[in-house]
């Protein structure tokens, strides 16, 4: 089934198409939002909101980008709205991340997760789309609505920052695991 056909069927309210689409795409959208929001419940809410929006606006999918890219754009937009609304009720997200159980099993994943949480939002978005979602750089640019050079630059700076944080953090982790707190 082509993207355009999938979008048309979702727009028409075909339950099977909706179920299949959500089953296929829910995990990757959830994990992206999970690392953007740094909060599992918020990520679930936003993922749900993303798919509701897709259901509502699938008729406007014009086929210029893949349906997956379009879905990611919707998710990023929902994340942006969430960030704006959240400014009024700021929470210590890094602390919440560290406390959430079952989020990442290995020390590598914990270290990378915490380092990611410290990146500027735009860099984090670009890096996650590129590395976690395994998009091409042009898909990242299309999803973020920025030129390819900007997307590359953001992802590059994110990687440089992660490397330096991990080098420092990995040493700490080797000698004293409990010392790896977000500073």
């Amino acid at each position, binding site marked *: 089934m082509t993207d355009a056909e999938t979008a048309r069927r979702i*727009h028409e*309210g075909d*339950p099977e198409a*909706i*179920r299949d689409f*959500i*089953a296929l795409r*829910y*995990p*990757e959208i*959830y*994990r992206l939002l*999970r*690392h953007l929001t740094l909060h599992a419940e918020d990520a*679930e809410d936003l*993922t*749900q909101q993303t*798919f*509701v929006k*897709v*259901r*509502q*606006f*699938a*008729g*406007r999918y014009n086929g210029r980008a893949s349906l997956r890219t379009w879905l990611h754009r919707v998710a990023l937009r929902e994340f942006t709205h969430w960030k704006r609304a959240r400014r009024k009720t700021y929470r210590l997200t890094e602390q919440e991340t560290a406390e959430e159980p079952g*989020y*990442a*099993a*290995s020390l*590598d*994943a914990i*270290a*990378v*997760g915490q380092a990611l949480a410290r990146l500027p939002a735009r860099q984090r978005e670009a890096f996650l789309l590129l*590395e*976690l979602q395994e998009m091409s750089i042009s898909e990242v640019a299309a999803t973020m609505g920025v030129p390819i050079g900007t997307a590359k630059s953001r992802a590059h700076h994110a*990687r440089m920052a*992660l*490397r330096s944080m*991990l*080098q420092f953090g*990995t040493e700490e982790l080797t000698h004293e695991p409990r010392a790896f707190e977000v500073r």
Partner: protein
Amino acid sequence: MSHEHSKSDEVIARAMDEFRREPASSDAIRHCTAMALQAQPAQPRHGQGLRWSVRLAVATAAAAVCFALLPPRQASALDALRKVFAADDPDILQHWMQYTIHPDGRRELFLEVYTMKGRARLMFSGDNQILYDHGDKTILHSSGEVEIFRNCKPWRTVTLKQALYQPGHEPLDQTVTVDHSARLDGRTVDRFTIIGHIVDGLGKVLTFSDTVIADPIANRPLRSTLEEEGFPETAIDWDYPSYSPKFFTLPIAANARVVDHGDEKAWRANVNKNLTSGSLPAAPLPGQGTTKRTR
């Protein structure tokens, strides 16, 4: 790539693999599906033709409002004022007189100036006259005595634009209007009114109101009044006479006592060198001769 970078990249890659394997809650997926199935499609947009028609109508209406209200008047007034600024050339011979305007409307002459390309003769009302000419600064005191400094910087005329918009005092907002049929001394002139607000050094917002009267053909300023809340109003009148050497000649009496201080920079350095703590340097009085004072 350094070993540390390579190691970090491996850590990142392992973490990404792990993140990708992280399962999503099946309850959350079920709930999400239910919500999506219940959602209704948004109302379809209007057709492309109608959409563009609406956009065009909105744009036309906005443009009409803009043309009907501020921009045309503002743009033409500002453009005309910019021409006046451009015509206010400090290199051409200008004669201007600066007045203080008292609350009863009386104009009191404060300063009269002839200026042309680095040369200037300043005549302070009832006080000194100063001539900047070819690197010399000559001060004719009201007592008739004369001081001369050499190798001075040339005079720099403050332009009308600089007088209106002093650095650091750029207006917060301003409204510029122009009356092309104003009269001055029997002739038709352009009269600009500039009203706006600035922030003073203490952060207080002050209202200013300036007028500029300009020659509509040559665009040169002829008169301006500067009024700023809390400060006395000042006015400047310009005229542009033909050159005459007498404009840059001080009326020094033949028997006047003259003190030549020589190089101004050296003179200042000498004064500073002799500055002692707790007291000001003894100012060289006219007629006391030397500027090479020693301790």
